[in-house]
């Protein structure tokens, strides 16, 4: 195609300007697609974290707060659930199963979860998928630990290794439970959820390491050895939260209300599906703002393209008159400019996609480690194709004005030389 070939060569001749245009388009494409993909993947990833749990019970604070710290290990609980309340919940006639959760410690930045063996049976994610072990077995003894896939991979632990837990949830802790080390007895398969980032120990083990502590610090002068602790009663006084499964989903409102209005303790029961939805509703404003900004950036890039095409027109008036004299039809002049804008858009889009892939690969480690997010960037979704199609349409639209100018000029410029 003559016109396309001329467009290509013409752009190559002005490759400095063309490169700038392509880069700005590429950046805007990378931003827009990246934001979109992150948004949808994050939502799906979060939504796939928990399945099959009817209620989560914790101390009365805010529902989203409870969801975040009990399921996503983000944020910290303010208060606890007493063991007495836990037992009462477990005995409720409409409750089929319960799994207690105890949080607060960490292993080199990864959260530690104290729970029972029931956790491994009842925790579901995605489409009703269960947890499964890659190596080893579920904890049995007091100082047994089961690692999530990412913990094992990142810290390089395997079966039989000894680990020392730290108090508090920050990456660096000055207070370690080094008198009571744990042993890795199992490593879980990768799930793509925060389970991968968690160290799982028994409730007894969690109690054991705090038995000689009070208020977040070891009691001076009192030190109970690992051997002595085995013979003590290690039922905790309180836990952080409880996952609850009911005999029938329909009972959820009634049970929830009973827990919420409990007279003995300030408790709160949330429905995970609903609370997650409320979390998304909250985030939607921010998401839309981000999307709007990305769209504006793309508009800016298209404006850059328009500017480049328009300012080039004056210098190219001679070229257009020449082409006309050689027999080019006016529509071919028009198509030449449109061809250039389309070519720039396509190159920009391709570069943008490549840029995004590179960024994603670079950030994937951080995303899965810190947020438990797995983001895949290929192949492009239908939604993303639509965005690219809009970009191409925008590129053509942008080319219309300079193309029209060139077309008009080509008609009126006769044989006269214009500089």
């Amino acid at each position: 195609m003559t016109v396309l070939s001329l467009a290509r060569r013409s752009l190559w001749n002005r490759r400095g300007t063309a490169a700038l245009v392509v880069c700005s388009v590429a950046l805007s494409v990378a931003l827009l697609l990246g934001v979109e993909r992150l948004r949808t993947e994050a939502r799906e990833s979060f939504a796939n974290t928990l399945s099959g749990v009817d209620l989560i019970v914790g101390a009365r604070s805010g529902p989203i707060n409870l969801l975040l710290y009990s399921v996503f290990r983000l944020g910290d609980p303010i208060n606890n659930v007493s063991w007495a309340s836990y037992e009462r919940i477990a005995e409720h006639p409409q409750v089929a199963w319960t799994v207690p959760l105890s949080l607060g410690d960490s292993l080199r930045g990864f959260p530690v979860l104290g729970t029972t063996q029931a956790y491994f049976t009842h925790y579901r994610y995605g489409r009703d998928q269960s947890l499964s072990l890659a190596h080893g077995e579920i904890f049995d003894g007091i100082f047994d630990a089961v690692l999530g896939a990412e913990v094992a991979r990142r810290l390089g632990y395997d079966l039989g290794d000894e680990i020392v837990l730290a108090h508090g949830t920050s990456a660096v802790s000055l207070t370690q439970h080094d008198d009571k080390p744990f042993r890795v007895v199992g490593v879980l398969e990768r799930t793509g959820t925060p389970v991968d980032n968690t160290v799982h120990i028994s409730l007894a083990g969690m109690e054991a390491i705090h038995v000689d502590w009070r208020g977040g610090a070891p009691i001076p002068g009192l030190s109970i050895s690992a051997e002595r602790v085995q013979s003590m009663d290690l039922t905790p006084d309180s836990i952080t939260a409880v996952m609850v499964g009911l005999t029938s989903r329909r009972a959820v409102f009634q049970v929830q209300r009973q827990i919420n209005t409990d007279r003995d303790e300030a408790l709160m029961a949330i429905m995970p599906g609903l609370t997650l939805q409320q979390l998304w509703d909250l985030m939607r404003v921010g998401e839309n703002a981000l999307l709007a900004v990305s769209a504006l950036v793309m508009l800016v890039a298209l404006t850059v393209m328009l500017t480049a095409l328009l300012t080039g027109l004056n210098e190219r008036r001679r070229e257009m008159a020449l082409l006309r004299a050689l027999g080019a039809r006016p529509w071919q002049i028009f198509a030449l400019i449109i061809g250039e804008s389309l070519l720039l858009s396509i190159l920009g889009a391709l570069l943008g996609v490549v840029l995004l892939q590179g960024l994603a690969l670079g950030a994937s480690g951080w995303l899965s480690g810190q947020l438990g997010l797995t983001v895949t960037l290929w192949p492009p979704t239908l939604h993303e194709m639509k965005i690219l199609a809009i970009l191409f349409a925008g590129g053509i639209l942008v080319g219309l004005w300079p193309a029209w100018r060139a077309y008009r000029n080509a008609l009126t410029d006769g044989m006269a030389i214009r500089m």
Partner: protein
Amino acid sequence: MIRSLFRSLAAAALLSLALPSAAEITLEWDDMIPEGWPPPELFEGINIDELQDDDPEAIEFFAKIEQLWDEAPVVESLDGKRVRLPGYAIPLEGDSRSVTSFLLVPYFGACIHVPPPPRNQTVLVNMAEGKTARIRHAFFTVWVTGTMSVETSETDLALTGYTITADKVVPYEPEYGD
């Protein structure tokens, strides 16, 4: 005689166009409560408007209500019927784009002052195989179309209730001039 025949035929034709597919029954929430429930004696002597939340009489009243709500009977004749029901959706499983099961209730919110809906005013909706619903936000209003099944259990009250296996969930647009 011919004229009146024509008229009734025309009316029937128009009616069938106005209604959704003839095989579905459009339910109203009252349809799911059997006749005579709740027993009117419950409300004798109680003036709801004047009750304060902390009033011991109110607490006792609400406790009675909750117990009654738990034992709410169901309309068994609805079992197996193809129905269409509007309500507020509370997602249970899946993410907002593809919800696989949700609860459908006739009123909004779960605040402390209002007891949750009774058993016969709560419908568990499971999407049919391969289908998902789009619940745009919490308590999103939808029309649910599907097959109703009514479960009853003598031994465990918790198992009694309505379930719809839905194949179509669309946003709710009010229909006027019924």
